[in-house]
């Protein structure tokens, strides 16, 4: 997946970019409307994350122009303004969704996934490891030609494992990804979800190994 982030706040942009790369997405960053126009005229992105208030213009203007070129790249608006007043205008202008700053990165990912699912169906983001294929947008896991529909948390967990096979993930790290920071999560909850993934993966060459005291790791082959 290749994303374009249009955001003038350098700090925030850097943070979003580093997090997106961590999740395995390629992301370009433009700080101005004119920069963003340069980017979209050279590459067809899968998704655009667009801030509203930009130094050389309004993100809404960019959106209007983008839609006027008959491009249907999905756009998610990042807004820091009050939701009450902004929401109608951005959706009317053809944005697919919006998210209010500050946001939970997992929520942003969830919205990206929902928008991509609506726009593209299932063709773009299929990962193959061993004898399984996994489409993190639609949440479909395929083993031996058999489709398994994953629930959202299972999907996110598997996506994380698949992003770096052979890496060890501690229980805390997994908990941070699956649960919001306000929930007090017991380690048992993680074991439940890992257990479910294991069950789904039964009969494939891919498995999740427990490393006592360290965490879990995805192995294949």
């Amino acid at each position, binding site marked *: 997946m290749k994303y374009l982030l249009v955001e003038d*706040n350098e*700090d*925030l942009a850097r*943070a*979003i970019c*580093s*997090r997106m790369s*961590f999740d395995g997405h390629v992301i370009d960053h433009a700080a101005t409307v004119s920069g963003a126009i340069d980017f979209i005229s050279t590459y067809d992105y899968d998704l655009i994350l667009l801030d509203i*208030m930009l130094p050389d213009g309004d993100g809404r203007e960019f959106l209007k122009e983008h839609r006027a070129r008959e491009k249907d790249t999905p756009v998610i608006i990042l807004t*820091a*303004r*009050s*939701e*009450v*007043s*902004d929401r*109608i205008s951005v959706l009317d202008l053809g944005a697919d*969704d919006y998210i*209010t*700053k*500050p*946001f*939970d*990165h*997992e*929520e942003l990912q*969830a*919205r990206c*996934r*929902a928008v991509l699912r609506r726009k593209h169906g299932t063709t773009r983001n299929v990962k193959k490891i061993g004898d399984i294929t996994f489409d993190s947008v639609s949440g479909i896991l395929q083993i031996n030609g058999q489709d398994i529909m994953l*629930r*959202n*948390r299972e999907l*996110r967990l598997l996506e994380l494992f698949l992003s770096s096979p052979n890496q060890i993930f*501690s229980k*805390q*790290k997994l908990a*941070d990804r699956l649960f*919001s*920071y*306000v*929930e*007090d999560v017991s380690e048992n909850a993680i074991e439940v979800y890992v257990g479910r993934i294991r069950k789904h993966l039964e009969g494939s060459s891919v498995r999740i190994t427990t490393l006592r005291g360290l965490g879990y790791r995805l192995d294949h082959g």
Partner: protein
Amino acid sequence: MASGATIRGSLRTRLMLLLIGSSAILAIILFVLVRSFAVQIAQQSQDRILLASATSILEAATVRNGEVEIDIPYSAFAMLNTKNDDRVFYKIEQDGVFLSGYEGLISSSGETDSPMFKMEEFNGNVVRVVSESRRLSDDQTTQTLVASVAQTRDSLADTLQDISRTAGILGFGFFVLATALSLWSAAYAIRPLNRMANTVARRGPQDLRAVTQSVPKEMGPLVGALNRLMGRLGASLTQSEDFIAEAAHRVRTPLATVRSHAEATLQRVNKEENRSALRAMIRAIDESSRAAGQLLDHAMVTFRADQIATENVDLGDLCGEIVDRLRPLADMKDIEIALDVRGPAKINGDPILLQNAVRNLIDNALKYSPAESEITLALWTDDKVRLEVRDQGPGFPKDQIEQLPHRFTRGSNAKGTIGSGLGLTIAQDVVTAHKGEMVISNAAEGGGACVNFSFALQ
């Protein structure tokens, strides 16, 4: 329409009274003029006949050998016949000496050549007397003959009465016509004022455009002042909305930066101590950004609720949109949001406010629901239009149900969730602004919070 203004008098009534009053005065003047003119004419014609009669008597006089002889012609009295049989008196004098007729009749034995006309009381009647004189000469002498003819005025009085009646009817008719015209002209004159009041009153609360319709010159200053007032009001409303949006932007952007950094750092840090510090930091950021957001939403809601913009809102469409929007969030906890539209549910209201209220309910439900549970959003219409949000969470603490919609009140079981205590307050305010009712309760079995909105049918 009269809200706030002290009403004293009415332009229309004032205009009408003035017009009717002046037409009454004109009618009376008309009556008096017509009548006095008629009296004058009638008197003149009686005088002319009396004079003709006196003249014909004098014409019949001859002098023979110094003796005056008069053979009064029949026509002299016949011409004075009236339908009321007015009585006629006459008197003939020669050089001041009574010759014939009624001696008591006073004559104007003046020496003038022109005839004399007089009113007089005779035998208990008011009579009109005409005296005419003539000089008669033969070879020796010259005598002056004076003939006076008088007539009672019964017929004249009758005629005058007829004329007065006609003049009265004429005057009254004129008055009635003028009154009708006054009513019409008062209504016509006041019409542009009413028309403008109507156009302004029919406007929605957000419509602060200047009044551009053409108005009469006298209303120019009023409309000008109104337009300037609306301009100022519009500017200050826009300013407040802009301020709220700008305030949100200023508060949230740095928070977003800090949060993203904290999250990114959390991915790299392994030491449990540091991780829990970062988690606490993120929690505090969420807490404050949510509070800021809710405070601003609350300000916006209060601000809009004062002047509620009503349009026909299909709650089914509105909830569908909200559910679509919140589904990714619900997915993160594997919560299913079921939208159960049991029938058409439409009310008149402000869609932005209603959306905000419903979103707050579902936000709450999402926060308190366990993973892999279900939230139901039901809509139906019976004697009222109803909307209900039900979850499978722990429910509201029983002893606090009354206080929860109050500002900054949070349930005792809210510890460990992010919240400002304004969600239900906003919902309550919105429902109140729509003259509806909000009831919060717990599902009978298995707990679960339930919030119910009801609005009157349109």
